[in-house]
């Protein structure tokens, strides 16, 4: 890859073909299905956002904004009311009504293998007040409903009733209200879309600068970059950090960057007396689990040079993290600062905790999931070695990594999480595991703090957004001061495109054709 970079850098300049109103985008991950209620995975959702809308949308900073609903309010503690936008038409010309919304919500629990039921399961009662007003009842006060409904795409009842996955893949049921109409899906190869000239969001203008959009699926990084350089693509997503400098130097290209909602952190086992892979320097298993000691957790955090990782290893495509959610995201506590690199302080803390000689452990990480994940693990291990903690890096492909993580086979492990609110991230990652409340689903460090749990419960039942954000921040502060996990950095997402095309980069990492513009 490095060689390719050097060779490409020496390539001659040539003129790029000037195309009309077509936009060709190279995507980094495979789109598996067109059905917007099947898998909740980013590539599928990315395409769905072009053809469909949801009641609520999120803006570039991952903040909630009106979508098909112009407004929503809590009528009482357990009832939400949504008012639909008037005059919105599906691609087949029929008008959007409350019936379509209701149908879409019901469909999420009917699609076999569908994962969007998660976002609608708390709705116990649904009521159509009039053609443009809906009410939803929940069992307990639930503030997150407008957020959950951001994930529920509204399909046309007429087109999608009695339709299966095949009908979406073929386009028969791909009738939405979104800025683009569906044209063709060739699995493993491409998705083609055409502009919806009567898009409600266009406000009389054009919904996009492009009549036709072609998404090509090219997961191999060098091939995607080559496609951009050869003029086959107008834009690509997820540019590898190693190629950033090369694109910055290229006069024909430009990049767009934005801090992502994805936070990379280490979780450490805090619930068992003995954790796997922990030993003293002579190889004897440790009698007690050092990670249960706050001083040890703080020491390991101080041992990490976040600035160096972000600047050198990530080519500045990362910012050091102090929170579980990145700065633009709801519930980010700004008063928390990234831990400063302090190896001497780390050594002192380790000695205080009874580990003057340090100890040995296994540092588990993925090698194909997060940007530069294995290199980050190696760098972290070297930094830990400087304070006396000998970390053996065990890097695994994600398909082997996640099942092991869930089984509790790791003591100190890398993880990444993207969430559009702090309380949601805390609920999944640090809340005490409780299946009925849906708390701690991914709390693999086994951290448990009743005060954090209580703050989160209060946040989820608080329909006042400002109050909720204050509670989410309080919970974040508590968990971070306890080192429930050790945050490392927030990834910065990079798009590259040929001039003069520009992109409005998004925190949620999505690549939206309608947000590419020619100034």
């Amino acid at each position, binding site marked *: 890859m490095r060689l390719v970079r050097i060779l490409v850098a020496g390539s001659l300049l040539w003129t790029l073909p000037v195309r009309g109103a077509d936009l060709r985008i190279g995507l980094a991950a495979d789109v598996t299905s067109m059905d917007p209620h099947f898998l909740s995975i980013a590539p599928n959702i990315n395409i769905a956002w072009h053809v469909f809308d949801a009641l609520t949308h999120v803006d570039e900073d991952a903040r909630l904004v009106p979508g098909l609903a112009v407004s929503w309010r809590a009528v009482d503690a357990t009832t939400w009311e949504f008012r639909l936008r008037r005059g919105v038409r599906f691609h087949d010309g029929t008008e959007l009504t409350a019936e379509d919304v209701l149908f879409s919500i019901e469909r999420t629990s009917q699609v076999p*293998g569908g*994962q969007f039921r998660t976002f609608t399961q708390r709705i116990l009662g649904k009521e159509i007040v009039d053609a443009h007003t809906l009410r939803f009842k929940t069992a307990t006060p639930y503030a997150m409903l407008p957020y959950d409904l951001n994930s529920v795409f509204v399909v046309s009842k007429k087109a999608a009733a009695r339709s299966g996955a095949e009908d979406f893949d073929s386009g028969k049921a791909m009738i939405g209200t979104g800025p683009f109409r569906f044209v063709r899906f060739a699995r493993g*190869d491409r998705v083609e879309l055409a502009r919806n000239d009567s898009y409600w969001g266009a406000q009389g203008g054009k919904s996009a600068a492009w009549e036709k959009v072609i998404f090509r699926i090219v997961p191999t990084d060098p091939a995607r970059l*080559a496609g951009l350089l*050869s003029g*086959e693509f107008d834009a690509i997503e997820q540019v590898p950090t190693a190629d950033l400098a090369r694109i910055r130097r290229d006069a024909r290209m430009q990049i767009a960057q934005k801090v992502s909602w994805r936070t990379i952190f280490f979780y450490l086992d805090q619930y068992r007396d003995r954790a796997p892979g922990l030993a003293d320097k002579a190889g004897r298993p440790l009698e007690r689990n050092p990670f249960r000691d706050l001083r040890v957790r703080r020491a390991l955090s101080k041992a990490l040079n976040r600035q160096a990782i972000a600047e050198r290893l990530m080519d500045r495509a990362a910012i050091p993290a102090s929170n579980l959610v990145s700065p633009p995201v709801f519930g980010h506590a700004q008063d928390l600062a990234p831990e400063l690199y302090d190896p001497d302080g780390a050594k002192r803390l380790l000695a205080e905790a009874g580990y003057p000689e340090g100890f040995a452990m296994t540092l588990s990480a993925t090698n194909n999931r997060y940007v530069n994940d294995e290199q980050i693990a190696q760098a972290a291990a070297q930094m830990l070695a400087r304070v006396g903690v000998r970390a053996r890096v065990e890097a695994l492909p994600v*398909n082997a990594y996640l*099942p092991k993580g869930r089984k509790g086979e790791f003591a100190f492990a890398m993880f990444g999480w993207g969430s559009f609110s702090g309380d949601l991230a805390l609920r999944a990652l640090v809340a005490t595991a409780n299946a009925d409340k849906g*708390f701690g689903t991914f709390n693999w460090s086994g951290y448990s703090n009743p005060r954090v749990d209580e703050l989160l419960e209060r946040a989820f039942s608080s329909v006042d957004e400002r109050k909720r954000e204050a509670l989410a921040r309080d919970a974040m502060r508590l968990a971070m001061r306890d080192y429930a996990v050790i945050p490392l950095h927030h990834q910065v997402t990079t798009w590259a495109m040929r001039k003069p095309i520009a992109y409005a980069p998004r925190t949620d990492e999505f690549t939206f054709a309608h947000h590419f513009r020619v100034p």
Partner: protein
Amino acid sequence: MISHIVRRVLQSFAVLAAMSVLVFAGVYAVGSPMDILVNPQADQNEIARATAALGLDRPLPEQYFIFIGRALTGDLGKSFAFNVPAIGLILERMPATLELATAAMLIAVLLGIPLGLWAGLKPRSGAGKAIMAVSILGFSLPTFWVGLMLILVFSVWLGWLPTSGRGPTANLLGVPVSFLTLEGLRHLVLPTANLALFNLSLVIRLTRSGTREAIGQDYVRFARAKGLTETRVVGVHVLRNVLVPVVTVAGVEFGSVIAFAVVTESIFAWPGMGKLLIDSINVLDRPVIVAYLCIVVALFVAINLAVDLAYSWIDPRVRLGEAR
């Protein structure tokens, strides 16, 4: 002949059964696909419900027998990731791979045999040496690197050919193919060259060494002494003997090129079966992995059968069905 074919088919069922057990146990040992495909926002109950819906909560032997029961009725399951039947998914991708593999093997054989013959007949000539040098490179350079270099030179620098993808397809008897349109052909060139290189080198070397051996043999000298033309000596007497190992190897290699063109398909984003297999392994999409390997086993059996038949045609001493 018939008994030979029947025996082969029976053997292949045994192989299929053994393979399916291995793959099932292997994927199970790695972990649950639910851990990878799970919606991060889902709660514990939802994950448990989804796992049960796919039958992944049952003990492995039970899962296996449910699979076998369905497989005997022709249902190999639905893909966890694509939500369509696994067999359909693979068959949908198959034409792209078959086209690529066939084109690559055609190049390997049609170019490799004449070049190998030349290098074998005139080993000390400049051309002979050059051919061998190229074949050594073709052997030793990694496919991944060669693919990137091809893209770099022909797409990025020269801008002659597209970097990736299959391009437009035309229908031939209902099957989408690339080679009927100019644009499709342009997309086919680089991946084919990438995939063909290794086998081209292999065929060159086999043909060359076979030729070198044959021209020293008594029957060739005898044929020359009889006054036969050089064309007849080489084209009939030498070539027939040289072809036997070439056909074996080409047959086996054709199978692997179809089944495991993964690297080339990944680099060139060629929407074939190999890429599907890798994608499926990455998310532990077991129905697709199992169905894929079943098809590959069937394919190998068919190709080996074809190779056996070709033998008996090329070498009259080989008689199928008589061997005990």
